[in-house]
């Protein structure tokens, strides 16, 4: 094999030797870097710059040449509020509703996700029966397309869905009748577990959006935490056992502190991904009812590409504000990472 490769590589080397002789060693590095820089610039930097320029323009034309420069008007429009905690007092109430929904969603989703992922990872790290099977089961939803996830859950939760059918059946069983007897005997009301319209009730729609998102992504974070748990040296646990440490103390004093760097990665990844939530929830509720599950990415999409007129400038400005938040989150991650590495 090497006999074949070596002559080919020698052949390829000839022009580069020539180039190095002409340009010198420091400059030859650029010969290798320039193609990559050009491609990266074209597909990564240029869109970012264009997005920023769009954010400073107005009108409904898509071509930059036809769009008037309006300075920071789009940003002013988005940020203008009498009271930032009440969307109704904001000029663009839809933007602020999306901001609040996203904040609440990310807080709940990330919190529950890490709690469940950690619990699952701790269980799967033990020597339980069919461990490989359960690891696959928890990871399986990660492999599904977000739209498939949304449609499957919509099928379960719609008015005529499986969950309501189950609840209606349950409502007619002896169990509910017996429980109703107990509650009425205690002076309460009879128990009624009939199905409701889960997707058209704002609170339930939000709850299920969080639930589905946790269900769909938990496997990924479980896997990362599991890898972190397996990286903790066995002898530390053996020493703890010899010292007579309880399971709870071992968890608190050994597992969690040693898992902290991995948890940090999981936290930041989950936060960034949570802020970017769109496809699953959009396919599940369409952002409704009203704006109950409209998140920031959907706002950006609808202003720029689905609404009428298409406000590309406003959409670009909102995406820049979102980018600022994501950059701050990433900076925090880097800072915390550095701090934990430095000890």
């Amino acid at each position: 094999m090497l006999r074949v490769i070596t002559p080919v590589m020698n052949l390829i080397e000839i022009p580069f030797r020539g180039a190095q002789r002409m340009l010198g060693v420091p400059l030859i590095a650029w010969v290798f870097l320039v193609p990559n820089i050009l491609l990266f610039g074209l597909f990564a930097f240029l869109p970012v710059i264009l997005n920023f320029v769009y954010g400073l323009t107005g009108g409904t034309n898509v071509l930059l040449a036809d769009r008037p420069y309006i300075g920071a008007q789009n940003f002013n429009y988005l940020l203008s509020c009498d009271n930032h905690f009440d969307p109704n007092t904001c000029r663009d109430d839809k933007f602020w509703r999306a901001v609040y929904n996203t904040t609440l969603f990310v807080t709940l989703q990330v919190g529950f996700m890490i709690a469940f992922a950690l619990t699952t990872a701790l269980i799967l790290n033990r020597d339980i029966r069919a461990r490989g099977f359960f690891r696959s089961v928890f990871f399986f939803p990660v492999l599904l397309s977000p739209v498939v996830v949304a449609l499957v859950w919509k099928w379960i939760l719609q008015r005529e869905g499986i969950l309501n059918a189950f609840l209606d059946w349950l409502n007619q069983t002896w169990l509910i009748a017996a429980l109703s007897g107990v509650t009425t005997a205690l002076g309460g009301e009879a128990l009624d577990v009939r199905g409701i319209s889960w997707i058209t009730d704002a609170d339930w729609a939000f709850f299920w959006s969080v639930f589905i998102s946790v269900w769909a992504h938990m496997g990924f974070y479980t896997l990362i935490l599991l890898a972190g748990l397996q990286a903790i040296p066995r002898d530390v646990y053996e020493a703890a056992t010899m010292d007579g440490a309880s399971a709870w103390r071992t968890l608190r004093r050994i597992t969690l502190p040693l898992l902290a760097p991995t948890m940090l990665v999981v936290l930041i990844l989950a936060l960034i991904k949570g802020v970017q939530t769109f496809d699953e929830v959009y396919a599940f509720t369409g952002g409704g009812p009203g704006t109950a599950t409209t998140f920031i990415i959907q706002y950006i999409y609808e202003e720029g590409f689905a609404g009428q007129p298409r406000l590309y400038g406003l959409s670009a400005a909102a995406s820049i504000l979102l980018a600022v938040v994501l950059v701050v989150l990433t900076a925090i991650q880097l800072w915390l990472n550095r701090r934990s590495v430095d000890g």
Partner: protein
Amino acid sequence: MTRTHLTTTALAALLGATALGAQAQEVRFMCYSDGNECEVYDDLLNRFEEQNEGVTIEVDTVPYQAILDNLPVQLAAGTAPDMAKVTDLGGLAEYYLDLTPHVDEAYWEENFGNTLDWYRGDRDEGIYGMHSQLTITGPYVNATLFEDAGVEMPGEDATWEDWAQAATEVRDATGVQFAMAMDRSGHRIAGPAISYGAELFDAEGEPILVDEGFEDYVAQFVEWHETGVMAQDVWGGAGGSTMVDAAQEFINGELVFYYSGSWNTGRMEEQIGDFFDWQVVGNPCGPDGVCTGMPGGAGIVGFDQSDNAELVAQIIDFLAQEEIYAEAAARTLNIPAHTGVASEGVEYQDVSEPAAEALNAWGAMVPNLSPTAFAYQGYPNNRAMFNITVERVSQAVVGELTVDEAMQRMREDLDAAMAEMQQ
């Protein structure tokens, strides 16, 4: 000798290929179907291909949402197909190909004179689109449920309140899920609002959207949702300006009164069959006796960015010919906008009795349509007004905003949209 022969053969092949390339013309037609429209157009356009050697027409059938969301972006970016079936008739007018130089102007004026203006946008003349299906918004009613409930169906001049009361009685008596539902669409709610006195435009013809009549209907509409008369699943079932319909609930026999439009006739015919008796009834009236729906529909347009402008015009002209148009209307169960075809009457093919009655009922509604409804349909920026309506009324329906707040937001949204469009 051999060398010369080979060179000559190669040259001949090259020229042949070039000539073939020059002759072969491909036209892409972006189409969506309410029923079987794209299938029928594909079949009709095969005839055009047979008559015009070297022409290939690719009918790309896409979801309706792609026509609303993707096509405008493609047009703005200069990557649109050659022609499309559209419903935002005035909103995309700036991109339309003027067919005038390639068609018989007198024929088009005579047969499509009523709808040509809808495609002109801000222009005063020109032929920019063939209105392929005239649609009217109005109600479908489950007659079997009325019969089972023993409730008399409201008559011709019945008001919205009459229908709401009757539909609720039927729902309660039969145990079905919903009394009334209306498609989640700014176009659909416009007819009832006009019946309640909405003017939508001021005396100078500038859009105002919200006035007393409009607010009255929205208040009533929101109340019907709060009291469970209207199905919450439709207007409360999505966010943004996404269109949601209740056709499946009606087809499943779970809905008494369904406010949609004539384009669903084919679907009702096909999917309800003899499951129950259904019928189309006249538009309910407002307090002052105005009983209007909204006209509308879809049209086939070519785009001026096409490389095959003349061919696109010929294809649309082919579809506009009386014989072809009549066949398309008959096979797709649509109301013709072609006055020649309309006056001759359409012999709808393989159509059941309820569908035939429904098509006649839709036709009978045309004279009752309000001039405001025609003006709204012809207004180039009506899509912006429809979207604002859907978003804000939905928020009122789910309780995020009061009706007053929703009306105030609609005024502000309209001002902002108009300002952006004028930049």
